[in-house]
């Protein structure tokens, strides 16, 4: 008998493979994946068919407008946003006859003279906090003033967020690391990938909840638990294999939808602009990273968020013994994150809320200004949260293990 014990194989890989097969063998999983692909594809292709109107006048499809702007942007690629470019931009914009009755983009002057500089104008507006009307009517192009205004604007945002002096000093130091004057790069592809991140995150987490909420409970409802739990590897190795298979599925779904968005975006919008500063995508951030890096970080965060969600869903289903209740709680939390915004004055609560898995995958949270301080060092959200998530996922899995192992087959 002892010999039998010695000869027993671990079989983790075999069991992992079977668990993956069990997940992928469900029709629900394939229907959900197809629905997700359809949502992504429609979202991605909608600019090709959606019309662009100014004051009710059809100007072309959104995509045609984008292509026109991209050509202008490409002409500006590689130029520093310095005094010269600011003067050119503002000269073009000041030629627009500004009246409150007509939107400035509807004017001929805008379309012919100013539009080629729209990317620079928008950047100046977004990165400094200066209002559009003030920019056009009264602002005199001044490189130093622009970057000084940005500092004032950021300081005011940080104060509104309730950042500590240490955090503000930390971000100021990061801000100094960002090379100025900014060098403009056409970055339409990365902008699209960035703006799709919340949709990808939402769909991935929703699919994770739908497809994994039955991974443990179905063993009980199908009554296979009697066979599984009385087998030598059924209480330990199988638990690990199920968790690993669930995590792999979540990772697979993330890769699938990320790849779909990335490939579609590259085909439609190109992939120029990897080196452009993140501030072109998200002006409120002081992170010294490029657009390309920001996109990689954001989608990496979605992957880690999907992993912790998968573990949470699987363990919750074992705790509740009910996949419908698990699905209701998981999707409810996801919906709640979209509906509820914690006011900034409740700093700790707001930070916790935005860092929860069902909120955090949104890029403005990933590159937000809240930090975690540890031993005198400040860690940015994209540095701290993945570590917190991975540790939490391990802790949740550890909590779920005894619950699974102690399951009692009774009744029936």
């Amino acid at each position, binding site marked *: *008998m002892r010999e*039998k*014990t010695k*000869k*027993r*194989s*671990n*079989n983790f890989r*075999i*069991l992992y493979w*079977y668990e993956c*097969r*069990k997940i992928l*063998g*469900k029709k629900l999983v394939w229907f959900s994946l197809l629905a997700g692909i359809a949502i992504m594809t429609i979202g991605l292709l909608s600019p090709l068919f959606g019309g662009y109107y100014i004051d009710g006048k059809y100007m072309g499809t959104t995509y045609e407008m984008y292509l026109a702007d991209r050509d202008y942007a490409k002409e500006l690629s590689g130029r520093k946003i310095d005094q010269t470019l600011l003067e050119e931009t503002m000269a073009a914009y000041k030629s627009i006859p500004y009246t409150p009755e007509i939107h400035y983009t509807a004017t001929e002057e805008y379309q012919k003279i100013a539009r080629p500089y729209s990317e620079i104008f928008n950047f100046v507006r977004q990165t400094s906090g200066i209002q559009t009307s003030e920019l056009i009517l009264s602002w005199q192009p001044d490189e130093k003033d622009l970057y000084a205004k940005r500092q004032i604007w950021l300081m005011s945002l940080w104060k509104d967020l309730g950042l500590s002096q240490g955090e503000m000093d930390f971000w100021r130091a990061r801000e100094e690391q960002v090379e100025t004057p900014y060098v403009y790069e056409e970055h339409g592809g990365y902008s699209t990938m960035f703006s799709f991140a919340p949709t990808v995150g939402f769909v991935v987490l929703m699919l994770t909840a739908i497809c994994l909420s039955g991974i443990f409970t179905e*063993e009980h409802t*199908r*009554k*296979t*638990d*009697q*066979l*599984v*739990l*009385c*087998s*030598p*590897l*059924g*209480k*330990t190795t*199988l638990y690990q294999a199920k968790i690993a298979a669930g995590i792999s599925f979540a990772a697979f779904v993330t890769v699938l939808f990320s790849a779909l968005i990335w490939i579609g975006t590259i085909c439609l919008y190109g992939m120029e602009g990897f080196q452009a500063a993140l501030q072109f995508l998200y002006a409120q951030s002081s992170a010294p990273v490029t657009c390309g890096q920001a996109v990689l970080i954001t989608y990496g965060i979605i992957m880690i968020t999907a992993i912790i969600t998968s573990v949470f869903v699987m363990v919750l289903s074992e705790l509740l013994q009910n996949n419908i209740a698990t699905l209701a709680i998981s999707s409810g939390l996801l919906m709640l994150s979209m509906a509820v915004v914690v006011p900034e004055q409740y700093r700790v609560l707001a930070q916790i809320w935005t860092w929860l898995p069902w909120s955090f995958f949104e890029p403005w949270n990933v590159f937000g200004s809240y930090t975690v301080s540890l031993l005198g060092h400040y860690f940015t959200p994209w540095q701290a949260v993945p570590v917190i998530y991975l540790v939490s996922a391990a802790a949740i899995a550890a909590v779920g293990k005894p619950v699974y192992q*102690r*399951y*009692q*087959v*009774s009744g*029936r």
Partner: protein
Amino acid sequence: MELVIDRVSKQYKNRIAVDRISIKLRKGVYGLLGENGAGKTTLMRMICGILKPDSGTISFDGMDVGEEDYRAVLGYLPQDFGYYPEFTGQDFLLYMAALKGLSKPQAKQKAEKLLQLVSLQDAAAKKIKTYSGGMKQRLGIAQALLGQPDLLVLDEPTAGLDPKERVRFRNLIRDLGKECIVLLSTHIVSDIEHIADTVLIMKDGQLVYQDQWTDGRGSLEDFYLQHIGEDNKQKHTFS
């Protein structure tokens, strides 16, 4: 080899399902009889470690029921067991073999042999959802035999089998009893009469009869009905 059940009890709310049962089982076939609700399945589940007793201990050759090594010597066929509809019969056996710690080549070899033993070799590549009730039952018997168990717990193993198959499996169980401990529960008294070395009768959670059964003692069915009937008669008298 010895299975020791020592003062094992289990209570559900205000009903005692198993009441202080103590017994030692050695190599051989043990037939467990009892009415519905007598506590047979609860006792078997506790022996298989999937239901924890409120009190008492269960061990096999010194290994506690909660240990992985204990589960390694166990083969279990539950009364109403589930399956994975998308798996083929062969997949199911290979999966169960992996759970029992068999290596891949061992599992493949053993699964082929067992599929042949339960006459499912021609349906091995078919999905279980296409199987009839009898075929599923035979597959269940096959999985219980994976890993050459020293302790085989069979809850209604011949349910759903046609008479010819039933006789075949009866003989198979009798042969297995020569090598290991077989505890089987059934409502078909004649099955136990033919193959059990020892008869156990449960009533209201208690083991009310435990002895060897020999041909010379007459009909087990009559004995069993008389045993249960007497108690029922008493019950009616008291009520």
